[in-house]
Structures are given as structure tokens and as C-alpha cells.
């Protein structure tokens, strides 16, 4: 049988093209995965607040500002009056503090950029985890070293379940920790 152009296109060119498409798709999928899951997301905040300075150098406890961690669902970004506990006196002359003071005096809340977000149908509860002794760093990374906060873990259901299934691997610092619930209604309802 005579070889035709059509033959060449079907036998060589088409599979080759499909192969290239598939490989590039798979590569992009895996390489971009972390970014798509939000890892490394560190947006510009309305006030250049440094966790490294406050939590790291000055060693202020996370729960001093994030007052909800032990009490309820939300950790809570601090209201401006918590900042003003110190900053009515401390570093009043710095430009960022002047900005802060302006917010406080005008009574407008600060529109902080959100970094960590679970979907609407997921009912995550901080107090359950914190009261079990899980440290903030386990999920949020070493915030004490961050000038600008960024997300370090991927915020996916897999990440939650990994820890719920093998807590000894992810929170080795808690003795005799039991597995977390894996049923749907533990988080979704």
C-alpha cells in the first residue's frame, strides 16, 4: 500500500502533538499546584505590620492579639483597640503607627487582606485545635520569622485529612494524640 501524507499525520504527528500537550499539562499542573493552593501568597497589607518584630523579637504571645483562638471558631484579626493598648504610647511617631492612629480615631476598621481562607461550606473551629494543644506554627508556619505573612501550607482538604489521619506525624509534640474525626459532618454541614 502506498504511503500517504494522511498516514504520516495520523501515525506520527498526531500522537506526538498529544504527547506534548499531555506532558506540558501534567508538568504545569504539578509545578503550579502549590501556587494554586495558595502557598506563598503574601499580599500587601494596608499597614505594614511585622509579625517578625512583634511575635519574634518581642515575643508577644499569638493569643494576646488573636483573642478568639481558644474561645471559638475564629482566631480573629485583632480590633484596632488591641493595637492601641500599646501604641497609644509606643512608637507614636512612626508613619505606620500614625496611619494606625488615624484609623482608630476615625473609627474605621482596617481592611486587612485575607491570607488563609477555608471555603464557605467548611466549618473549621480554631478552639478545638488550639485547646487540644496544637501549636499555631503547625498550620500557619513560622510566623515569628515573617516580615510579611504568607501562607506556607496548602489549604486543601487533603492537608486537613493528612493530619487527622496521622496526627503523630504532623503534631509529634503532643503525647498520645488521638486521630481526628474523618467523617464529613466533622467539617461540612
Amino acid at each position, binding site marked *: 500500500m502506498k504511503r500517504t501524507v494522511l498516514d504520516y499525520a495520523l501515525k506520527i504527528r498526531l500522537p506526538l502533538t498529544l504527547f506534548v500537550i499531555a506532558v506540558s499539562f501534567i508538568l504545569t499542573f504539578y509545578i503550579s499546584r502549590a*501556587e494554586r493552593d*495558595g502557598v506563598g*501568597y503574601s*499580599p500587601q497589607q494596608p499597614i505594614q505590620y511585622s509579625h517578625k518584630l512583634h511575635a519574634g523579637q518581642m515575643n508577644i504571645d499569638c493569643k494576646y492579639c488573636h*483573642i*478568639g483562638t*481558644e*474561645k*471559638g*471558631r*475564629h482566631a*480573629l*484579626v*485583632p*480590633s*484596632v*483597640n*488591641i493595637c492601641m493598648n500599646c501604641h497609644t504610647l509606643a512608637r507614636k511617631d512612626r508613619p505606620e503607627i500614625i496611619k494606625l492612629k488615624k*484609623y*482608630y480615631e476615625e*473609627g*474605621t*476598621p*482596617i*481592611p*486587612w*487582606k*485575607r*491570607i*488563609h*481562607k477555608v471555603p*464557605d*461550606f467548611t*466549618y473549621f*473551629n480554631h*478552639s*478545638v485545635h488550639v*485547646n*487540644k494543644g496544637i501549636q499555631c506554627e503547625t498550620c500557619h508556619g513560622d510566623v515569628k520569622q515573617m516580615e510579611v505573612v504568607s501562607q506556607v501550607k496548602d489549604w486543601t482538604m487533603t492537608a486537613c485529612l493528612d493530619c487527622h489521619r496521622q496526627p503523630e506525624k504532623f503534631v509529634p509534640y503532643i503525647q498520645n494524640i488521638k486521630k481526628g*474525626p474523618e*467523617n*464529613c*459532618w*466533622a467539617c*461540612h*454541614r
Partner: protein
Amino acid sequence: MSSSLEKNKYWKSLEELNNSPESIKAKHDEFLEGVVDKFDSSKLSGMSRRKFLAVLSASAAIATTACTDYRDKGEIIPYNKRPEEILPGETNYYASTCTDCSLACGILIKTREGRPIKIDGNPDHPINKGKICAKGQASILSLYDPERLKEPKFGNQNITWEEADSKIITALNNAVQNGKQIAFFTEKLFSPTTKKVIDEFVKKYPTAKVYSYSLISDKNRRDAWFETYGSSDLPSIKWNEAEIILSLDSDFLGVEGNFIENMRLFSEKREVVKKLDLNRLYVAEGRLSATGMMADYRIRVAPNQQLEFIYSIINELSNANVITVNSIIKSLVSNYSIEKFGSKEKINNLLKDLSSNKGKSIIYAGDTLSKEVHIAVNYLNELLGASNLYDWKNINTNSQLSSSKEIEELISNINSKNVEVVIHFDSNPVYTLPSSFGYKEALKNVSTVITLTESENETSVAGNFTLPINHMLESWGDASTRNNIYSTQQPVINPIFNSRQKESIILTWINQKYDVNNFKDFLYNNFNEIIYKRLKPLVDLKLFWQTTLHDGVVKLEGSSTPKVFNVSSLTKLRMPASSNKFTLHLTESFLIGDGRFANNGWLQETPHPVTKVTWDNYAAISPKFAKELNVEMNDLIEISHNDKSVSLPVLVQPGMSDTTINVELGYGRTNAGDVGNEVGFNLIPLIGKDLSLIIENVSVKKVEGKYKLASTQEHHSLDDTFVKDLHRVRKIIQEGTLKEYRKNPKFFHEQEDELVSITREHEYKGVKWAMAIDLNKCTSCSACITSCNVENNIPVVGKDQVLVGREMQWMRIDRYYSGTSEDPIVSNQPMLCQHCDNAPCENVCPVNATNHSEDGLNQMVYNRCVGTRYCSNNCPYKVRRYNFFNFRDHFEDAYYENNLTSMLNNPEVTVRSRGVMEKCTFCIQRIMEVRSNAIRDGKPLNGNDVKTACQVACPTNAISFGDANDINSEIAKLRKHELSYHVLEELNVKPNVTYIAKLRNTHSEDLI
């Protein structure tokens, strides 16, 4: 052939018929002249279409990538200065008082981030003890009703409060100067401070006169008490000590009296688990009421024959020398014999019980019955020693209502132009007053008609000033319905619209200037006068005020001595006019009251406890009567009386008296709002000037036409051999009599099949959630259904969807009839997801969207659901609900899709969208809350701490919930009780909702 075609040629216009030249040309050209222009390519731009699209898409792509970050997650906006008590994500509770009806129950309002999301009863309140009715539960929807008035209005014009106030004050002053009357029209008042505000108003404007009128009231009872005991204050009744109760057309377990308290006390004597202690309830009524469904014996007595009925009981008992009657009565009753009322056996049982339980039996007549009946009942109670059961320490104080004569006087004063100003103080007389008074027409003779109301109503559109008032959750206030209780009301949210507190508006007219806190200060001062000075507590006033607000209620020392029966009142008794004609019995709507809740979709859609009809009222008549009229369900009949007539659909109701027509009031409103307008039929015009709700000698006839009633449960024919008593055959309802149970406690567990499973049984090692429902206590009041609606964000679907069976309530109360259609035995059964261990729904889900948790819950995951509805098809209990639409935007053109109503949603529960299956979750959000609290406190999880929404709402505590694996818990004991059973046990699906079988306290061992 061709000639006939020629003849039948069709034509579009006269021009065409006449073959005009234009029409011939028009037929030739495709388009008319001028529709399309000539095309000139030289005028077009040089850019080709392909290039244009390329530029467009490239710029769009650049814009999206350059200007936004696809990872952007929005903002977190914390408080600027966080209020100390508010922690976002956590719940706050405030005690207050429900002012939607004159019971003034204590309530506990749940708020999240400053917005109220649920109302429950206040457990510290001594009357309602943590329970409120379905109406109270659903009333939170009225706060977020998008049709509430937003601004004060004059006619259709919005005006400012200052303008309105100054115009009204001028009108009031003019009226006083001209010596013309100011009519102040209110509903029944139960707040001492509001009464004082009105007194001050009358002092300031001396020509003012106060009229108070309620469509539904216990005026006849109060008047009778005034005659017989010299005071219209009523002692409350110790239902929990009564062994025999005879109810005469009274729905005391439904809507009459303090029904929340009645239900609680009554159910204490329906205890089969902790101890075996049952009272016996006889109900003599013409309709089938919620109380009638609970009866051990029902006797059918038309409401106009009740006087004869009670006379004949007195006669029989006196003939049997059980009681010694006064000579006046003796001669009056001697002609009446009880034999005409029902079967001899029942009557003999009743007489025997009454005579052998002196001091422990009580007869209770309904609010709608005449004063004579109440006097006769009070007398018989006195003779039977029922005054033992009157609780003279807890007196229900009275608030005077105007007599119909006074209202007639008002209207004649208006018509003779002696009234210049009419103030409707949160009342709606244009709707609630019978049209025979001519009130609406009379209002045209008044120059200033002011209506204080939350949303537009029939009265506000008939007047000129319409002033928006605060919802009860935005208001300050107080209430005192008993001599020894004072409860307070506090706002839990700022007024959402530009509305004011109704008392504050009146105070503004008294003081001539407005101040936001004027009523709050007035209330505080009055609290000092009437409570603080009376109690003399050791703390200072401000602290005592704050603790009172915190608790919501203060208990006072009540002092009252038992009153003596006044024998001379018996002279008021007359011979009953015997009539066998048809009687129309109008009763309060079980769910929308006297019509004030008409715009509340949740209440309109809650099935009526007896008939299961939603979104309508109807004429309930007996099957025999229906046969005589040759009508069946959904046929229209016309009821006429005194030249007025109303046509409405028929509902054939087993158990009705053959001469009675029962219709609920409160429907057929014309200005209630989009939800409530034209729902049902308005029967108020048939009421006469005597305001009696029992209308004798009405004429009834069949009229042409059909109407569709939306009922959530079929009326199974009682005569049909195939479906008759199906619920008993299938063991859905298992019940017995007390006698049978005493003889053999395991009477229905004797012939049980051994159930085998072909798979390995799953073991539940940790907690295992389970529910038990005591059918002895359930009165079918439906508070659980509305509570569930509020808790779980359940949408309103509308009548058209209920008609095709798409109602969304997660819980329903099934009602089954057995016996004969004259004398049906009614069984009620709350039905919700049974959380079966071997759940049939789970096996058939193709995407594993419904599955089982390790603590025994049948989980439903909305995000996985693809909407095959296999689960619903395979569910033997039919408790799964499917979102055929996004019901939030589907109901009445997206009535509930607005920013305001979405504030109502419980943030702990996902709002479901179209195409998703849903069902009862055993209130998983509450379970998880208790669980997280246990972890926080470092305690083990205690199943008894979890209280589901239906359980909290149940006025009779029929519902228990907890951990079945905890052997000391109540639920574990209930599951093992010999009266407990599961519905459709033989399917071996192993449900986790246990029912406690109902025991009927009859004289025989057999049920039917």
C-alpha cells in the same frame, strides 16, 4: 372542493381582503420599507472583524491578569473598637419578652454578631419555662420582613418624623380645643408601663378615650368569672393534679388560655416512662381541635348545644345524688337528658368518672362559648370540688376590653363628626372588626387617622398618617400577665428602618419633643415605682434593673385568697334555645393567630396540626354533612348569614359534628403584604355585632367551582378496605390502652420477627446519637417544625410547590385516623430522618454524598450531591427533601432574596442551593458546639448536653436526645423501655429514633 377553500380563505386585515396595492407590494417584499438600510462597505472601519475580536480578547486577558490577583481572598474587617461582649463567631443570648400575643412569654434571643437569629423560651420564666409556641418561634422572620415600613408616611408620601409629629400634635390640640373626641384604639394591653403611657396621654389630651378590642379574646370567660366569683381575674389551673378533664369545645392544648403552660402541666399527667401516671381527657366538641386529638373519649356536641349538654350533666349527676344543686338550677335543668349526646357507654363512663373523682376532676369550657355556659361550668366545678384545682396564687390578671356597645358608640360618634383624631395603636380594626360595624366607612369622617404599625395593613391604608413602629426585638417594654410576675423586654438590635417604638411616639406627643431614650427612661422610672419600691431589694435601683433585664423576669409575692362562688349569679342562666340548624364555629387560626402573622411564610407553610393544610383556611364539615350537601374536598360552598355570604372550599373532616361548620379566622387579608395577601378567605364579615364567634342558623349551599387546598398529607379514606388502618397494619403507629398495658406490659412486643442481617454489623464504640419521641405527650403543636425551620435555614416554597409535594420542612407531624369517620381515633407522630444504622439511602447514592459517621449519624454532604434523588426514592420514611429550585429566589419572584432577609440565616448551617438533597441532621451544628466546648473545658463529651432545636422547642418535653451508648443517659433508658418501638422495624434498617407508644386511658382493654 376548491370552492369551499375559496370560501374559507383567511385574511389578516381588511386591506388584504380588498387587495389594496400596498398590501400586494408588501407581500412581494420580505421586509417593509425602511426596516433595513442599504449597505455601504466604504463607511465601515478599516479593522477586520477577526482583528477586532483578537484585540478584544487579548485586552480582556491582560486586564484580568494585570489588575487582579486570582489568589485574592478578599478582606478581613475586624471591629475598630470591639464591644466587650461580642466575640465574632460566638453566640450571645438576651432575655426578653415576646409581645406578639397577650400571653407575653419570656423569651431568650440568640444573636450572632449583633443580629438576632433565633427565639426560644426563657427557662427562668415561671409560666412558659423555656418554651414558646410555633408563632413565637417563627416571629423572627417578621423582623427581617422586606415589606416592613421604612419611613413615616402621610397618604402615599414619605414624610419626616418631625413633620409628622408637629402635624399630629397640632391636630390633637385642635381636637381638645374644639371639644372633639380623640379615639385611641388598641389591642388587649398587658404592659403596665404602656398602660401608664396611655393614661398620661389621656391626661394631656383630656378628650381622648381608649378603646381596646381583640378579635380573639376570653371575654366570655372573664365575664362569667366576674358574675360567679366577683372578679374577672382568673386563677390558673393545676392541670397536673386533675385526674379527669372534660373539655367543652376548648382548645386548651392548642391556642386557648396559656396553652404553653397548659401543655406542660397536662403532659406531666401523661407520663408512662418515669412513672405510670395518666389523667383521662374527655372532649365534647363540634369540631376536631388539637385538644380533641389528644382525647381518650370524644363526644360530638355542636357548639350551640353545649349549654344543653352541661345542663344535662348537672341533671344526671343531681339525679344520681352526686351533687346537690340549687333549686333555681334544679328546675332549669330537669328537662335535659344526656342520652342524645353520643353513645351511652361513653356518657356513662363520663358520669361515673366525674362522680368518683370529686376534687380531682375539672370541666373547662372554650373561650368561644357563651357566658351562660361558663357560669354553668363554674357552678358544676364548684359542686364537684374542682376549685381545689384552681391555683389562687397564680392569678391571670385582666385587661379590660371594650364592649361591643362601646365600639358602636365610637362609630356613631365618628359618623356624627364628634371625633377628630383616631389613633390605631398597633391595632388593625378595619380587618378585625366585623364589617357590620361599618368602621372602614366611618373613618372617612375623621380628618386625622393615625396608624402605628410595623407594616402596612388594612387600617393604615384607610387612614392618612402611617407611622412605622419597632419590631418586638427592637423594643423596650415590660409585661405583667399574672399577679406575681413582671417580665422585661429589651432591644437586641437597633431599629433596622427609620421606625420608632410605639410608646415613644405617644410620649413624643405628650412631651411635644422627641428623645431616643424617652420610653426607656419612662420604663426605668416606672420600674422603680411599681417593682423596686414594692420589693425593696438590698441592691441599688440601677443594679437591680440590670439584673432584671439580664434575667428577663422578676417574681413578685402574690397574695390572693380563694374567692367564694356567688350563687345569685345563677339567675343569669336561661333555657337554651334549642336549634338543630347549621352552626358556624369560627376559631382562631392555629398558626397565623387573628391574621397578624399572615405575612409570615414559615407559619403559612406549616401544616395545620389537624388537617395538614397549608396556605389556606377552609370549611371543615363532617362526612355526613358533606354527603348531604353533595360536596367533597375542594368543592366550594357558600355560607350565608344576615345578608352576608362567603364562598370557600370544603374540607371533609372526620369527627366533626354533623351540624357544625368550623372555619379558622385570620385569613383573607387584603393588605398584609406579598405573602399574606389573598391567602384564604375572610370570615370576619359574617360575625354579628354581638362579636360571638358561634354563629347559629347559617345557611349553606353548594356553589359551582373548585379550589385546590394544599395539604401535605392525604386524607386516607376510613372506609376503604385497602388503606383502612394501614398505619396499624404496618406498625407505623403502635398504641394500646392503659388497662392492656397494666395487664401485660410487653403487649405489642410479643410477636416479633427475628431480624437477620446478611452483612457484618457495624459496632459503635464511641458516642452514638439517638432520639426518642414520647407519643403520649406530643400534642402536634408544631413548635418543633418552626424551630427546625429557623435553626436550619429552611426556605419557604409557596403554595404551588406544596401542591406538588415539594415542601422543604425537615420535620413533619404525621396524623393518622382510625376507627369510624364519626368517631375517629387520631394518632400523631413526628417524623424526621431516622438516622438508620442500615440506612437504605446510603447504599443507592452513586456519588457517596450520603454516608454514615462513626457516631451513628446519617450524613448528607451537599457538595457531593448531584441530585439523582435515588436516596429519597429508597427512604422508607420519606424524610428527604430535594431543592427543585433555588427556593430563595423561586418563592414569589424572589421575595426572600434580599440583603435583609438573608440576615436571618443561621451562620452555622449551609444555605442549600438548587439540585441538592437535604434532610434532618440531628442539629449537627449543636452537637459540634457541645463537642468543642467539651474539648475547651477538658471534659469528656456528655450526650445530655446536646439539645436539638426541636427538643428545645417542644412544650411538653416529648423529645429526648442524647448518647445511646451512655447507659446512664435518659435516651438509653428510653430505648430499652417496653413501650418503645421503631417505625417499620421489620425492614431491619435499625432507625435511631425511638417512639414511645401511646397509651390511651380508656375503660376497656381494646383500642377500637
